[in-house]
């Protein structure tokens, strides 16, 4: 049993309350300002102002909703693509023997060593001069390639996102006890049946976790969409938020309302998938 002295416990609570308040302070400020108009912003900065300017949120929503939708499309398609490709590959690596298996796996894992800074510039050039799309001829000249299109985001996300997932999922698939497969086979199940009835149900939690991990990566990405996209109406959420200043003559209430709305999608996702979300965060952090 822990010895229980009341003084240290109170000390801990005070320290945590102060640290917690300071940590959340920027967000509390954001919420407070989001309900002010400019006059209230300049004269009563710290107070809760009356009347409350709910109109800021309507105004910001009309601008932000488009960016949220863009982000959902880009991240959603990327994550689904990544999950399908990487789980199929990881399953093959884990369950089937074929010549060069370990070598190929090593080739995939080796890519984890390559930092994003090294690839940013040539990836841009590749996307710009990708043959036969966006007005390019078969030598990749003459048009803008995949620049300024959602596919210019989605395809590199799918390609790069699968590396870590193949690594994690292969470990997971190999951890499924052989006896389960044997039992299923004795019962006359085909490989396809085994996948559907044994592997998929067992893998749902890990798939959600790694799915969230790659979702977070693409959702929060700023630099790549910034260089790939030109048209404002294609902007993803982070880029849209960063350019809010340019869209208004500066009305801080509306800008803060925009930031607040920008926080919502992740918060909602977090509330519904808390446990997986945290594990996804941990995986994602360790990956970087």
């Amino acid at each position, binding site marked *: 049993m822990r010895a229980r002295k009341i003084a240290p416990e109170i000390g801990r609570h005070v320290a945590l309350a102060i640290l917690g308040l300071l*940590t959340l302070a920027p967000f509390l400020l954001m919420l407070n300002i989001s309900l002010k108009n400019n006059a209230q912003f*300049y004269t009563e900065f710290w107070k809760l102002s009356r009347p409350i300017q709910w109109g800021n949120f309507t105004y910001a929503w009309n601008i932000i909703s488009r960016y949220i939708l863009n982000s959902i499309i880009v991240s959603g398609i990327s994550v689904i693509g990544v999950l399908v490709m990487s789980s199929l590959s990881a399953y093959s690596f884990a369950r089937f023997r074929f010549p060069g298996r370990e070598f190929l796996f090593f080739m995939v894992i080796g890519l984890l060593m390559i930092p994003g*800074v090294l690839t940013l*510039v040539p990836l841009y050039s590749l996307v710009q001069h990708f043959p036969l799309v966006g007005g390019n001829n078969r030598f990749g000249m003459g048009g803008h390639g995949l620049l300024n299109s959602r596919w210019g985001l989605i395809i590199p996300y799918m390609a790069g996102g699968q590396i870590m997932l193949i690594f994690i999922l292969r470990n997971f698939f190999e951890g499924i006890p052989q006896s389960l497969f044997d039992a299923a086979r004795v019962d006359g199940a085909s490989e396809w049946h085994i996948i559907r009835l044994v592997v998929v149900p067992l893998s749902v939690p890990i798939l959600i976790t790694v799915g969230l991990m790659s979702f977070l990566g693409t959702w929060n990405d700023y630099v790549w969409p910034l260089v790939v996209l030109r048209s404002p109406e294609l902007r993803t959420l982070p880029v849209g938020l960063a350019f809010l200043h340019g869209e208004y003559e500066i009305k801080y209430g509306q800008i803060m309302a925009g930031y607040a709305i920008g926080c919502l999608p992740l918060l909602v996702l977090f509330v519904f998938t808390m446990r997986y979300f945290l594990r996804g*965060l*941990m995986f994602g952090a360790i990956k970087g």
Partner: protein
Amino acid sequence: MVPTFLFLGVFCYYPPISALVHAFFRWDGVGLGVFVGLGNFRELIFEDELFARSCLNVCIFLVFNVLKTITVPFLVAELIYWLWSKRTRYAYRLVFILPMVTPGIVTVLLWRFIYNTHVGPLNRLLTMVGLERLAMPWLASTKIALYSIAAMGFPWAGGIGVLIYLAGLHNISSDIFDAARVDGAGWIRRLIWLDFPLVISQVRVLTVMTVLGTIQGFETVLIMTNGGPGFSTLVPGLYMYRQAFQYGRFGYASAIGALMFLGILFFTYMNLKLVRSRE
């Protein structure tokens, strides 16, 4: 498997190879460019003062960021770990995770606002409590902008570090804590000499994460000051970005990327060696 390797081949193998090759070329992103040998590297290392400046800046960021991730989050994890009730532990954990659940960009944008010279809360607060002379152009002064960015996120308690340290503390057997109590170790001594060494593997993971993230990351600087005022907050990643996307010097940018890659490789190698020698 076929789509995997097709994608990997085109979008994952080609770019880094292309980067390493084009580091030796004058290249505008089209075709092969003009071979210049080691010209890019020579210019970067011996002539380009901005690059040297950016390397110095990123070193300062490294020191700050590593200190930020290993100190406060560890303290917070300790405070939470020793709380009596499971429910309050859970609640506080949630508080410190919350910043992770908002888009990173919002945090950066909010801090840019906090540091704003005219309307920012920081200067307002200083004026309010009678410290006007401390109010300053946090992001607009060449002398302090770098440190303002480095200090961003005060009190540096929110984030993944708390979670990772908590997981580490939970793995420690309670016998060890009991033994420490019997020995009469005070809490500060226990913190420094017992708990911290016991979570040293978490410290290492976080340090590696932070170092790699800091070397590569330039989003924060891009948004806060875009490297300015002047070039006082320029970092190598941002310099690369600018060389490529503002001046169209893709070859030169590739050379910067290659040098950063070398830096990262060197750090990874040292880290591995250090871990080996400890074990």
